[in-house]
């Protein structure tokens, strides 16, 4: 089937198998490998992207369901070489180590602040419950999100 999805500002029209997951469409058809796959149960959030401005796990939906939509991935966040405030906050607060959960974590964190611009620490922790990280103990991720909220 044919899908038309605007990804990082560029309209992409492709023929896909109906069973194609959005994450596979991004990684395998568009070679946008910044979005990672960390599990097969929609548990880890490594594949989190934005669809029409909302953070979603791209392994949990079909490419077909994003037809006509606007997708932003980690590759589309920086503008003219300047990092998004959330990316900057992760850098300044050492919110990443191996980097594998990072794209999903950044996208989820932006989504979280969009819904709740001034979260408490507890709200950040609950809001990121669906994004797993094995390296940081979440300490600096939470710190990064709280710092970004203050920017």
């Amino acid at each position, binding site marked *: 089937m044919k899908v038309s999805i605007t990804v990082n500002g560029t309209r992409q029209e492709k023929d896909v198998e109906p069973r194609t997951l959005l994450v*596979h469409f991004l990684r*395998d058809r568009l*070679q946008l*490998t*910044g*979005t*990672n*796959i*960390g*599990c*097969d*149960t929609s*548990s*880890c959030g*490594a594949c989190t992207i934005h669809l029409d401005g909302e953070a979603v796990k791209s392994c949990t939906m079909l490419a077909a369901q994003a037809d006509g939509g606007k997708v932003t991935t*980690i*590759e589309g*966040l*920086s503008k003219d070489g300047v*990092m998004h405030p959330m*990316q900057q906050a*992760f*850098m*300044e607060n*050492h919110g*990443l*180590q*191996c*980097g*594998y*959960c*990072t*794209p999903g974590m*950044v996208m989820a964190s932006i989504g979280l602040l969009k819904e709740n611009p001034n979260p408490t*620490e507890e709200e*950040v*922790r*609950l809001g*990121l*419950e*669906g*994004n*797993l*990280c*094995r*390296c*940081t*103990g*979440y*300490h*600096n*991720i*939470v*710190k990064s999100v709280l710092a970004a909220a203050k920017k």
Partner: protein
Amino acid sequence: MAGSILGNRVLRKEDPKFLTTGGVYVDDLRDEPLLVGAVHATFVRSTVAHANITSIDVSEALTMPGVVAIYTAQDLGLQPVEASFNPMAKRTLLASGKVRYVGEPLAIVLTELANQGEDAAERVIVDYDALEILIDVEQAMTSSTLIYEEVGSNVVFESTAIGMPDNTGDALFADCEVVVKGRFVNQRVAPCPLEVRGAAAAWDNGRLVQWLSTQHAQGARDAILKVNALEAGQVRVITPDVGGGFGAKIDAYPEDLLLGRIAKQVGKPVRWTETRSESMVALGHGRGQIQYITIGGTRTGKVTAYQLHALQDSGAWVDIGAILAPYMTRPMASGVYDIPVIEVRTTSVATNTTPMVAYRGAGRPEATAAIERAMDLFALKLGKDPAEVRRINLIPKFLEPFTTSIGQTYDVGDFEGALDKVLEASNYAQLRKDQAARRASGNTKQLGIGISVYVEITAGNSKGEFGKVEILPNGRAIVYTGTSPHGQGHVTAWSMLASDETGIAMDMIDVVWGDTDLVPTGGGTMGSRSLQQGGAAVHQASKELVEQARKHAARLLEANEDDVVFDKFTAAFHVAGTPAVAKTWADISSALATDGGLVQESNFVSNGATFPFGAHVSVVEVDTETGKVTLIRHVACDDAGRVINPLILDGQIHGGIGQGAAQALLEEVRYDTDGNPITSNFADYAFISAAELPSFEVIHMETPTPRNPLGAKGIGESGTIGSTPAVQSAVIDALTHLGVRHIDMPATPERVWSAIQSAN
């Protein structure tokens, strides 16, 4: 060190890439010319835990869409290979004859597209003849069913068999006024790096090039050479970005070892990425000890004897997980305490479960958990405060080597200093008052305070580490290291070390690792060794480079070498007193361009292992009606010696605490009685999330080690080692007034609730 970059909170150079385009992990290698036209490998895995294989029928699978080839052990003529730590145990890299755990690879399916593999693999029909399934270590020890018949026993590694003394039993405690016994389960956990295993293999003019998600490319290269009977130089391993390892990606797995051979057989490059569900059963697991302890001493609180028998679950192979108990747990059994008599025996046992490997701490968290729980039980028996009993038994501060009664020599230590710091920072006295108030009021949310004081061993391997610094004619520096970062920030830290000696700006330094053509020798990143060995090698190479360059500069300046000074601030050499005429790194490198360039190689050998130590206080709230535990505070003081970058140091501590708390509270790999894994994905395995953790309170302490010029010790595992028993003890501490004495990890609501019920 005024003016030095070392010790500063330098932001990571790695981060912009990870944050803007994402890392390039092995499954992200899309533009690699050698991988054009690659087929995709999917492994058929055993669905039963212990059985003889009666047949493997691939005929239907071969008709599935996209299938290029299917290979079994027989097709490939695989011969049995010996286990590294018990040569009597042999297996083929794809199971033949029998299967020994759910997840063991049996056959390899090659398909044109990645998503065709799983469909085809499901059509491979394997017939089994069931054997008795041994999941429990103690059952396996006594069973007549043998997992490796040639071994003659399911005990695959025994400390007494390699000359370590046996335990003498209760006789050891004849003179003790107080004796306490315990049985602790240090449960099996899954390392869970966020990136699963993956590799890609291609042949290039008779040479195998393999990309691999690994912690140790040089080790993988040697293993691939050996298994394929290739000659040195015929294999190149390249490490792309690696999404975490935690010990489980140190050694090459059967899948990794077979990929090159398969690529040759099929005449095409091969890519492989496992699924998370596969990873949960086929990536090695960690911990898995049953510990029998006896601790005895005086009524005033002095421990005079300690005995441990550790039963190590080896899983269905004799991998490194089988020898951590004798070589890591045993020597560290004394922990931070001066105990006159210690006996430790370790027995490693094969079971029909995923093979055990190293996992963050690898044998030391088990040692610490055993002695710390023992110390708590001893204190409880005496009715004394656990902090006070610890203080009575701590090895006093030492700046000269100290040898414990088990025979391990520690470098430097100030255990009481760490305990004092953490008690003060946590306001321990007030916490005890708060706890007493809650107990008095019968509050259903009881407060628990857990203490752990630990010491661990890092970088015991003294074979050395490789470091090289090359200066390009444009003045940029390339640092080559035998370590292999996968989150530890070596690009930043090694740049800092090189910059500190050479004066070259941080952004003019690149770091290269994990490509065996560019870095032929190296020990990889594991066991908290990297900074103190790999970092020290970069430091040494940088220093030697300056001395080498001074000679060249003297020649270029037509001056006596003794008159040439190096100005780190300008990163240039000049004759003393005439700084206006100077030779930069670029000048010197350019002058040597046709003469081998400006390069300095070093092999750094340390003066022995280092012993990071620290103390943790953990505070939990336990709901006595539901058994739910909430970790509300965790205060950690970890002494890793000299700190090069406190930003990275803290990150390592945080991550360690997170994983330690996860083991204490949530995580456990479980099997049903038929050996089926019941925690084989992230929906069933209780991987800890942000919602279950507080922010951590980290206190710094620096006692430099004399064993390397940096004064640095390891920090990668300390957080895990210190936190696990502190969190566990906190849960139990919340309930001691109800009669609870011990709760095994993980302290799930069900377990905690049951412990309260049975204590009543």
